[in-house]
């Protein structure tokens, strides 16, 4: 059994993003594994550890530096990994889907593909669906519970506050993980040492045989969104404060 986990190399969520014109931004910030992908990887590791003996393969599309995200995935417990190496930071989703599909299909035949529910950098919210069509597999995203029994996968997917769909799928299938699915493990120092010996196969994009990409969605520019400044601060007696607040909300902000 082979489980492929798609992991993306993204800036730390607390990092300050500084646009540098066009699609460029200051990439010297700290990078991490896309947080949702950790839930996906943790799920794969649990399936392996539950006695299925699955092989867990982490796959990413990114620049050379994305190997550090694969190292983290290997330290968490992935058996081996694949990097599809691109030159640019941003790859449009149609292209990313195609590259992931091609790299995985060449490597083996997936019994399960796990992804996060979204990238925290581009917020595309679509790769698992694209993989579903490319691999011809059913897809469920925003998954908070998972079980697999005799070739059938049952998941719960959150759709609203406290409303969940219980979905049953045949395998192989694609599952997009959300927060709450599990608690991802933190690699220890020995785990990180062991990870150094595990495989990172690097496939330059050009070797997958696709023509140069014509993005279907092209990033023209990034603009920093300024925080709103210090607000009008009220203090003192709670009753008086709320009366003043309501007046401001009605008369000044006009939102009530």
């Amino acid at each position, binding site marked *: 059994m082979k489980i492929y986990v798609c992991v993306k190399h993204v*800036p730390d*969520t*607390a990092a300050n*993003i500084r646009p540098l014109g066009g699609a460029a931004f200051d990439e010297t910030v700290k990078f991490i594994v896309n*947080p949702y992908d950790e839930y996906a990887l943790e799920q794969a590791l649990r399936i392996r550890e539950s006695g299925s003996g699955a092989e867990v393969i982490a796959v990413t599309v990114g620049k050379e530096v994305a190997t550090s995200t694969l190292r983290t995935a290997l330290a968490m417990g992935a058996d081996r990994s694949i990097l599809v190496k691109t030159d640019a930071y941003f790859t449009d989703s*149609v292209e990313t*889907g195609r590259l992931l599909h091609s790299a995985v299909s060449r490597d083996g035949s997936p019994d399960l593909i796990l992804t996060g529910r979204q990238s925290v*950098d581009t*917020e*595309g*919210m679509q790769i698992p*669906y*694209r993989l*579903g*069509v490319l691999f011809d*597999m*059913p*897809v469920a*995203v*925003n998954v908070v519970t998972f079980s697999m029994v005799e070739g059938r996968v*049952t998941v719960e997917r*959150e*759709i*609203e*506050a*406290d409303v*969940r*769909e*219980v*979905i*049953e*799928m*045949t395998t192989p*299938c694609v599952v997009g993980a959300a*927060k709450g699915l599990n608690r991802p493990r933190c690699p220890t120092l020995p785990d990180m040492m062991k990870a150094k010996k595990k495989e990172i196969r690097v496939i330059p994009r050009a070797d997958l045989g696709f023509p140069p990409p014509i993005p*279907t969605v*092209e990033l*023209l520019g*990034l*603009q*920093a*969104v300024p*925080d*709103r*400044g*210090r*607000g*009008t601060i*009220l*203090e003192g007696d*709670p*009753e008086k404060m*709320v*009366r003043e*607040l*309501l007046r401001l*909300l009605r008369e000044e*902000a006009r*939102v*009530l």
Partner: protein
Amino acid sequence: MARIGVLIEARGGEVKKTALGALAAARQDRENEVYALLFGDHAEACKGVLRQYGADRIVAIRTPEADISPFPDVQAGALAAAIDRFQLDAILGVSGQTGRDLLARIASIAGAPLVLDCMDIDFPSGIVKKSHFSGKTTATLRLNGRPWILGIRPNIFPERIDPRQGDTVVYEATVPTSKRLVIREVKQGSSGGPDVSEAEIIISGGRAVGSAENFRILKECASVLGAAVGASRAAVDAGFASHAMQVGQTGKTVSPRLYIACGISGSVQHFAGMKTAKVIVAVNNDPDAPIFQKCDYGLLGDLFEVVPALTRALGRAQAPRIGHNEG
């Protein structure tokens, strides 16, 4: 001129308010021809409203399978087929939890460019804006090739009355029924209450709320405000609130007209989810709380005094304008 199909989410024969916002978004460009797309059983009940809010045509989609609600693949297949049948240049929907899933399925089937959570759309140029890096930057994107599949962020485009002809056509889509994925059940949790992702007013609690029981004071305030209740990650991780209530980076992204944060410090990750709220109010007892540096109104005080006072003041004022939460 572009022909835009607008995906209409309806519930109990009523069009969701956010879907009317999608019609308004499609209507921004006067030249556009707007087709409201919905599944057969809702079309009759909804047509009056759809005409009034700008639908040139109403397409009632029928599939061989009568009840397709458990089969999202079939729904998406039928909508993808409608793109060809009606020569649509774009499909527009609302980027809530349900719309997002369906739009992504349609785009994948059609191999079409997809941008979800759009905050701005310019039809003639195909240029859209959306958040990148969790609200820290706005990305300007250009779509190449058609059809475009677009999801708008809920509440960004206000609905607008714009009466149109709105003839109804029935479209019998031929899509194979796939049984590989079935929604077996829709489970309703215990807490109830409207969902934050499409709410127009949200009152959220952080770590300082202290317990699940204490969230009651926020719920009481929410019910007089017509608001949904949200939470910070710290409150969710501590078990005070459910995952579904979490606002932020790893929770929901919301754009209400009013966001009231109570006992929330104002971390980057929390702001990632609520930065685009029209007005942000912070209730915090620490004058140095970072949230006071990035809100519209700050109330320096104990949330356990301020929130009940707010509930009482609203109750006294009677009939506050109720937010149209449909979550």
